[in-house]
């Protein structure tokens, strides 16, 4: 067990963690943030993607003991004041969601991209989302949704 301090969705948590736990276990089991999903446990599917210190990471590949002073942002933090962000809205409008299980990870990868690069080209979008598998949508509506975020109108 170790005691760590980390910031999750702008809230500081001081928690005891088991050394065998991963970031995803801390989020889901300890903090009750079940929006982040586990699909493979080995960083292949990206369903567990969160933003850590500004970068998209797989929360199944980070141990709790490695989280000291980390700033984590999860899917629960994108909606502000009951208003969907533009990125979320575009996912809805473009049909970028079907079963929705990859969606939180997909959105976090897309957000990490847009935070740094508000007007990405298609290949930059695909680069950012290459680690997020989706089995339902064939990806095309997802690319369209991310493209549409910073198009006026």
């Amino acid at each position, binding site marked *: 067990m170790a005691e760590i301090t980390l910031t999750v969705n702008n809230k500081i948590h001081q928690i005891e963690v088991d050394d065998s736990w991963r970031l995803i276990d801390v989020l889901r089991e300890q903090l009750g943030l079940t929006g982040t999903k586990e699909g493979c446990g080995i960083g292949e599917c990206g369903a567990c993607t969160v933003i850590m210190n500004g970068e998209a990471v797989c929360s199944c590949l980070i141990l709790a*003991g490695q989280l000291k002073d980390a700033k984590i942002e999860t899917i629960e933090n994108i909606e502000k004041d009951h208003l969907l962000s533009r990125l979320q809205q575009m996912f809805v409008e473009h049909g970028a969601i079907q079963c929705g299980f990859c969606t939180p990870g997909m959105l976090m990868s897309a957000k990490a991209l847009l935070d740094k690069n508000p007007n990405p080209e298609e290949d930059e979008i695909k680069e950012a989302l290459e680690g997020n598998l989706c089995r339902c949508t064939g990806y095309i509506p997802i690319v369209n949704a991310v493209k549409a975020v910073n198009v006026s109108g």
Partner: protein
Amino acid sequence: MHNMIGKKVPRIDSYEKVTGKAIYGDDINLHGMHYAANRYTDIPVGKIKSIDFTKAEKMDGVSAIVFYKDIPGQKRIGPIRQDHFVFVNDEVFYTGDVIAVVAAKTKEQAYAAADAIEIEYEPIEGIFDPAEAIKPDARLIHPDFKSNIVNHYPLIKGDIEKGFEQSEQVIEREFRTGFHEHAYIEPETVTAAPDPTTKGFKIYGSIQNPFTTRRMVAAFMGVDLNMVNVFSSTLGGSFGGKDDIINCMACRVALLSEMTGKPVKLTYTREESIKESYKRHPYILQYKVGFNNEGKLKAMKINIIADSGAYSSQSFFVTWRSVVQATGPYEVENVQTDIRSVYTNNPYTAAFRGFGSPQIIFAQESLMDEIAALCNITPLEIRRLNGFKQDSVTASGQKLSEHTVSLQEVIDKSLESSGYLKKLEDYKKLNENSTRYKYGIGLACSYRGCSLGAEGVDATSAIVSVQGDGSVYVLAGLNENGQGMRTTFCQIAAEMLGINLEKIIFLEPQTATIPDGGPTVASRATLTGGNAIIDAAQKIKNTIFEVIKNELNVTSIEETVWANGLISVKETEECLRSIPFEKAVEKSFKAGVNLSSYGWFKAPDVGWVEETGQGNAYFTYVYGCQIAEIKVDTSTGKIDVMKITAAHDVGKVINRLGIEGQVYGGVAQGIGYAILEDFNVQNGIVKSPNLDEYLVPTIKDIHKIEPILIENPDKYGPFGAKCIGEPTLELASAAINNAMKFAVGKYFYQIPLTLERVYLGKNLIKPSRQSEAGLNIKARKQGPRISGITMVTPKNLKKALALVSEDYKIISGGTDVIIELRKCKESSKLLNISQLEELKKIKKSKNEIFIGSAASITSIVSHKAIQKHFPLLIKTCSLIGSKQIRNRATLGGNIVNAAPCADSIPPLILYDAKVLLQSKNGNREILIKDFVLGNYKTQINAEEIMTAVIIPLPQQKYYHSYYQLGRRNAVNITRMSVGAMIAFDFNKMVTDCRIVAGSLFDRSQRIYEIEELFTGKKLTEELINNIEEPLLKIIDNAIGKRWSSEYKTPVFINLCKDVLREIKEKLEIRN
């Protein structure tokens, strides 16, 4: 005119899904809940000699362990034949069989106890080839069913022998298709809780068919149906996959919840999912086809063996669809089809989107192109000549007169939209001028029976309930699997009642509150469930109408229009003769009438004679045509699918957004099935246990997909709608295969079209012996997971160096270490250096660049000086894993792990990089080429930490080229790589040539003998071609005996030439 139907409507469950608020099965946490873990068999086939629970029972937190002998009700379950062991008794039949299941207070305790159950076996030689299993003297897998043949369906039409006699040409071909894993992103999960009210259970989870689950649990627990209430959580993908496996899980947790009196949850890891879950059936298809010289089909004799695996499950129905559709959408007078599904000791096979059609379409549509070529006609001509037209008669003798037969229309529209005819010419020209890459275009078409057909009773239910304020609940006896059914159903209800979608809520289904609507399979939800909604809504409309008709001064409901929240009289001034829906509802409630209604739909009658395979199999059919455009790398055999044009007659579009989504998703799965998804099971053991080895398409593998939706309304469909879910998946493999013939001039008879299959004409599989099955049983973990970790995090490098020793594993980014830890049964002590800032620095000095070993790959790739001086390092590092992996993975980790496929090592060898090793006793530097000794072996000592990589700046200008071969376009385990950098003098003579090979030899290394061939010479095509012989010798000596060398040797030579050519071209352009 419709108000709601045909529009692009965002999903009604969008909000919860984009905010992370949707509750999936594993998100359920009930008070006092315990966790379950399976104890799987250790060997795929054998007798169980003993089971010892002594150790496990005494372990911390364990509340119950149950196995075969504890089953209170029916011992074996199954949708059609009850042959499936939820717990095996004294024999195991496949690698995913479960012997016992444990409940404990925590997940880790449950897994640990499952690990501690000791089982002894007596292995039996398994039968893994269905062609072996079908032989009369084969060992019976389930002796109680008397035969390994699960079922045999014949179909006889006309006189097959006469048909062949009348044919001018007869050909025989054999096709094969592989297992296909659903790979829904959400692994399976089920929770059962005791229900004191019913004295039965409440079941929650990722459940595709709640009524089937209820039936199985009730039988297994020996209780009545009304004692089991099944709630399907938001489902993270299913595609036919969350049925039987879920039912087994539900039985196990129901029993555990009874034993413990607590809610119990069982959630799978991906490895458990892939091991236990069922797949699409592999088929062996033999086609004998007779035709005349003009291409007119005369006779088709088809013999198919389907691998049912260890259990029968849906094999009966899957193969039935195949027997109906095996001749494709073509008129053939004389047909004899025989299909048999056969027990083996492989993972069992059952429903998967497409359901017996993708296999036969691959075979029969590939065959049509081959026949066309034999008759010197085009793929279009043969399909026009033989394809179904209105009133054509199918192989089962069904006259297609009850719906619009739109085969020609779907073909024509897809041709037009894709520009097929022009592209034939364009690609032909392109291929004439291109040696390495070849382009191809090909098409495939199909017809498909909608809904269940003669499989069984085809009826379904719905409830529409209008509340006092005009808001509405909709419930359905079918299930939302993620495909968008709820949205479609609410649209239909909104259209019927003439109200806004926002007024309708689709209620979470539970089996207790709605009549059994049958399974959500066979693309039947919209077609049958939509009709049930219409039925319910119509009854309510009739009731309301009776209340308001006098006020509207009309006598028949046909005189009214229900739209935009108003009930109006047709062709009058709206404001004068209309009533708001809410008002009408209020009046109805005051009148004391019932505004809740059950809807029911029973499909029109169909029929089938089992002995002859004749009858009206389905009440309606859909038609589709897909055109594939591909690019093939002839150096490696890699296929890139550039575009699929998908034309489908859907009857009527209900939700355009949803239906386009079905096309994109189904086509993407079809592409995976065709070229990537190679489920590897050998001697019963799964060799592709997770998504790093079972490869599904990434976002970079899917380029363009163009949906073309054709609407010929069906008289039985809601607003004319038919089906779309499955037809989208079934065509891509044949279309791609036909495009392959165009591109490379060869016919292929087996999918997936892996690199090896395309290049060599066969798949290469790492050999494994049957004796492997029993090895390392003790070392295996039930459910890969991280356990037994202690971690220390030193504050600085000095402290880290003081600690580092054999006791510790060093962890930095963790992207390799954590994956290994999941498999490791022993406890581990970790030394965490991921937060040592001093190891993350990247510095450029006059002569070198210094990269801290804990610098992330992302920080390296985006570093300006590295970009300028070491482009090959940038190129290969950009290809490591995914964005998320590169953000965490470190250069030091990639090197110290020393995987044969490590992407950063080959360019560092080319650049003469050194690694800096530090220990409390001092520092040393080693050239990276010497540092890596072999697979996962380096020169590092237990007391050392690699702290930096130092790369000398190149002293002259080099031309670079690099090729990394992966099976797909992103997130690869590199199959092979080759890099070269060459410097030239002013006369264009080579002054320095460096070539490196990755993932070829025991470790990445330069090939000096080949480099020397170029030194002091001009880089000419002739010289490049001359490397073939010496390179062949070098590779042959080093790896000639390896299973993979048959592919790797020639392909590496190709790639080596290709990179040298690229440098030559760069040099020419430059000058």
